[in-house]
């Protein structure tokens, strides 16, 4: 299993209700059910992948997070997981607000556009960066709102949510991100993993 999934499984408490937004082929949901006895639900946009999930006995609805999160009542899940797709939404702000409305907590993972290879790519070649995790050209990429780990931390202040825990994934090694190492993590981590919550004053909205 991907290290990213292992980290997410570790962040989630046992016997909770979890919604995996963009659950792909259900790999994460399966290990959540197996390892954490979680009541897992998924939303997935690809018909093929929904069918794969069904064949694994997972409860998944075909849908689009930007349109279909609104059918869930407030706080209907303990956690909502959004893996590496925030950058593909038309309006990431609305998506984050919806995640935090539907879930008591949200886990968001970000492919870090601040990684040194990305920066070097742009600096030297002068063209939009193409890397292993971001393999598309600028004109055909689904990733229309790329951000860096630092951007995401800044964003938490702008739209007012609380980052409960932030982790960096660098060459399969996991480390904490804090104010003092943010510059380095933003340069060397491939992935940022954030456990976020609503700020108290934002509850009940």
């Amino acid at each position, binding site marked *: 299993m991907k290290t990213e999934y292992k980290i997410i499984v570790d962040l989630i408490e046992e016997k909770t209700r979890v919604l995996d937004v963009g659950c792909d082929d259900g790999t994460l949901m399966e290990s959540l059910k197996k390892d954490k006895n979680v009541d897992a639900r998924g939303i997935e946009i690809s018909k093929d992948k929904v*069918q794969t999930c*069904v064949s694994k006995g997972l*409860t*998944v609805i075909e849908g689009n997070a930007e349109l279909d999160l609104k*059918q869930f009542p407030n706080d209907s899940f303990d956690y909502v997981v959004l893996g590496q797709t925030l950058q593909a939404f038309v309006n990431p702000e609305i998506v984050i607000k919806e995640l935090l409305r539907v879930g008591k907590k949200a886990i968001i993972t970000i492919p870090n556009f601040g990684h040194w290879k990305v920066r070097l790519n742009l600096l030297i070649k002068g063209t939009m960066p193409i890397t292993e995790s971001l393999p598309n050209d600028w004109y055909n990429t689904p990733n229309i709102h790329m951000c860096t780990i630092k951007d995401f931390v800044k964003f938490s202040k702008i739209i007012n949510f609380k980052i409960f825990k932030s982790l960096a994934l660098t060459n399969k090694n996991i480390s904490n991100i804090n104010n003092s190492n943010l510059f380095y993590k933003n340069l060397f981590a491939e992935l940022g993993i954030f456990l976020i919550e609503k700020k108290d004053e934002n509850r009940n909205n």
Partner: protein
Amino acid sequence: MNIKEKIKTLVIKKPLKLDCGKTINNFPLAYETYGSLNENKDNAILVFHALTGDQFVTGINPVTKKDGWWSYAVGPNKSIDTNKYFVICANVIGGCMGSFGPSHKNPDTNKIYGTDFPVITINDMVNAQVNLLDHFEIKKLFSVVGGSMGGMQVLQFISNYPDKANTVVPIACTSNHSAQNIAFNELGRQAIASDHNWSDGKYLSNNTLPDKGLSVARMAAHITYLSKKGLQEKFGRKLQERDALKFGFDADFQIESYLRYQGSVFVDRFDANSYLYITRAMDYFDLVKQFDGNLSNAFKKTKAKFFIISFTSDWLYPTQENKDIVIALNAIGADVGFVEIKSDKGHDSFLLDVPDFLKTLKNFLDKSYSET
């Protein structure tokens, strides 16, 4: 062997109060079963048929001598695997394959009911069929499954009997008929009623059949079961056994000939009054209204696992109407999965060889069964 010997019938002694206010009792419910009930009696699936279906789900229908209506999906090793599950299907009341319907005699008057038969609803249909569970001593079904009007019965069943099924599979259906749905049904009913032979529904006593009207009703309905793209690809503007237009009103086009054929074979197996009664039941179905405008309340009492399936090219019960059911279920945190299957075959997709659909249905049922 005459037709009656081919039809298994359960006489329901218990009085059934219908939505129209009348009560019926000692009435026949015709059914068929496939596969065998296991010792724990936990492998039963109640399949509900659609408007013109019947209890002969699969294999050769002994009355029509044609394949059962869901032969693609039901049978040994198929989506609804009769090696594994015990499949029960009943002819709906109001129907014409042995269950209590308008072609039966009224014991009080000794005359054929015709339009004196009470108006039936989807709710009445499932309340009649639940008696099959007692008959087979089944406490809880493994699943209730059905497409189109069968899907409506699935929804009504789990709403009425929340503890009587582990899994619930409504396919290509809706929680209430749209104006367009009612309009098409009304077109069919008016086609029947305007056939002189219909005689206000008394045709069986007169020995004349409203075949023309019923076949036009079927032709109109048949168009709604297919997609524009499917029709275009299959028929386009192809001519029927001729090289040029004949400048007349014969069936020049293949699509005309096809529809006429569909109409003509339908009248051999279906009763015109049953067509009126069953389309009426579909039009009256409104699970949203039954629960005061909140569909979620229909499912509040059940812990069953739902799986809802729609088809991309189905414009009779489009994806959004199926999704409204998903939304109502998610609003109460129910266990619900949903997939829209890609198919050009229109509403009829659920009856046809659509591999993605058949595979997904099988996967859902088999996986759920192994977990219970």
